[in-house]
């Protein structure tokens, strides 16, 4: 039982880390423009596909040594994923959200849902295809799941700690979350752009008066969220070995839940919310006895937890004390 507890702890934390990496993107954007960017799940999906394309362009290496794979291949794939997701996020902001900046709150929300559908279908229909020419020979199409390349040293590797089996992709996800959190803390608290972001989230008009270029700050917020989503996309590919055009929907929904749970608008809250949600799902699968305890009920318990938190702390676990915008 103790072993099972620690096993589910690891399962829950690593799943939660994946949610957290995506949740940061929701929370950063919400904190600045009060927009629930429902297309963020698709940014995560495009990050995974960007990494996959990078691997294809590198000549589909499968026999690189462990050291080269970890030090060259994996970083290149992450950067490739980031380029794809950041470019998509910035373009989305420019064409789908900026024209609606001063429109009623519902307009950009619907626009976000439209972007989400557009991006899913775009990948489904056009991945591996050159427009007006046709399919690229040898490239898979994304109409069904695409096998993600395995990285020597991570994919399929495990560490045995007592009775607990830890998979390397899970460690990669947790490590990526740790590095990203440190990077985010530094970015927000110690760089000029980061502090401009904080100022803009507190009061956009005054920030503009102080000489902050609000448009650029908003683009930076989308870019930061997209970069972390790309890391999550690579982690997803490594963990599950498959990526597909629909993967962003459920992951995005769960990550959005995590962001609300932690307190939307609060970056640390997104990280905590993600981990708590992942843990709740894993623990509910095992430790709730009786007929309500099987895996069929894990999402029910996760959302029961969300409702309880919101009843007693409407601002979320780490949210701002005063909720002045809802």
């Amino acid at each position: 039982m103790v072993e099972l507890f620690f096993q589910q702890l690891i399962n829950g934390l690593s799943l939660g880390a994946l949610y957290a990496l995506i949740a940061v993107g929701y929370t950063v954007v919400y904190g600045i423009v009060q927009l629930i960017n429902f297309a963020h799940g698709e940014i995560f999906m495009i990050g995974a596909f960007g990494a996959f394309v990078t691997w294809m362009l590198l000549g589909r290496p499968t026999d690189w040594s462990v050291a080269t794979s970890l030090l060259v291949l994996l970083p290149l794939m992450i950067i490739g994923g980031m380029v794809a997701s950041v470019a998509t996020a910035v373009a989305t902001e420019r064409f789908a959200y900026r024209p609606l900046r001063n429109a009623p709150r519902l307009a950009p929300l619907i626009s976000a849902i439209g972007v989400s559908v557009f991006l899913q279908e775009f990948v489904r229909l056009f991945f591996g295809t050159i427009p007006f020419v046709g399919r690229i020979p040898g490239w898979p199409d994304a109409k069904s799941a695409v096998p993600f390349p395995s990285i020597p040293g991570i994919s399929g590797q495990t560490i045995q700690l007592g009775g607990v089996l830890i998979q390397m992709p899970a460690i990669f996800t947790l490590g990526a979350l740790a590095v990203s959190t440190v990077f985010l803390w530094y970015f927000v608290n110690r760089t000029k752009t980061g502090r401009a972001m904080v100022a803009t989230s507190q009061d956009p008009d005054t920030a503009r008066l102080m000489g902050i270029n609000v448009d650029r700050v908003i683009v930076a917020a989308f870019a930061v969220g997209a970069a972390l989503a790309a890391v999550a996309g690579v982690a997803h590919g490594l963990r599950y070995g498959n990526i597909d055009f629909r993967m962003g929907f459920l992951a995005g929904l769960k990550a959005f839940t995590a962001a609300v749970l932690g307190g939307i608008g609060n970056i640390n809250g997104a990280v905590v919310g993600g981990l708590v949600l992942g843990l709740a799902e894993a623990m509910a699968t095992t430790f709730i006895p009786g007929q309500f305890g099987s895996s069929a009920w894990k999402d029910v318990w996760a959302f029961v937890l969300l409702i309880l938190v919101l009843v007693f702390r409407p601002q979320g676990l780490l949210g701002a004390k005063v909720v002045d915008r809802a």
Partner: protein
Amino acid sequence: MNKRIYSLAGVAVLAASLALTGCGARTDAGTGGGSATKVAKIGVIAPMSGGLSAMGLGMKNSVDLAIKQANASNAIPGWKLELAAEDDQATPDVGKNAATKLASDDQVVGVVGTLNSSVAQVVTPVLAAANIVQVSPANTNPTLTKGADPATPKRPYANYFRTCTTDAVQGPFAAQYLLGAGIKKVATIHDKKAYGQGLVEAFTTAFKAGGGEVVAAETINPDDSDFSAVISKVKAAGPAAVYYGGEYPQAGPLSKQMKAAGLKVPLMGGDGIYDGKFIELGGTDGDLATSVGAPVETLDSAKAFVAAYNAGGYAEGYSAYGAYAYDAANAIIASLKTSLASAADAKSARSATVTDMAKVSFEGATGKVGFDEWGDSVSRVLTVYKVDGGKWVAEKTGELK
């Protein structure tokens, strides 16, 4: 003003769709040119995009092959058959729209499909209202032919037939195989869809009756990609095999994650995981699947189908249900031979096609093709397949007693 235009448009659309689906008196099919060739269409409703498209496209191509052969041999004098394929995306709502579209086409006389039992549950009523015969090569849920209550079977729709066996046969066959292999403790997992749940229920009953023990019964969400929590729980129960009710898009990753989490026991499933994609997505050596019929490649009757399919130059393989779809199309064509012979137009032959279906009997690609009083296939042959060296290999063929 705007509001009124919208509601007017809504009423117009509603009226149009009623006129199209109802028994209107439109007779634009068969323009009465005397000896001129008339057109009858055989529809296909199957997933042609999305995770299950490998199976759906195999079905569509096989029906296309059957139609081309019938036209080449002039099977129905005076009539030319055409294919009308609709994508259902493995989703009931989309399938219903596809069925409505086919039902409103007066030239459609029969439909091959669907792949998913859950889609058939909404497609069949639409086609039944229009008297269009439906033959599924792949629905294995018993309720489609025998109604919701197994104790008092009642056939819900007279227009529904299938060329494959059902979960009521497939689940017990898997249970017998595992018990025969000395496996007494299994865990079951299903995806909460009609197919997966039905399969697991049939399996569980037979496995317990045979002296086996189900040590864990779990479910997953079809949209999930992380199964680690379920796997850890199942692993703690110590099963010797995992029986999975569902399809390969989840089964492949599930098998992969099981083995990565140290649960190194075979995953066994039904015909929904019997596809090359299962192995591509993570199915490993030792995993098992039951599928309906004997292996297509070994049957003499199937060799002609495989040869013709390969010669047809189709981009996709015939997949698990190709031969069944081919037989389903030929069953419809056999029925059309009598029903169309005296018909003035395709639409008026619809109900005769349904009644003549019961008399259809021939040697098809998968063996004997014929239907019992429920619309189920008379064949109860199944095969267990095993992943070996990265390929599905037939392990044992037999008939459920």
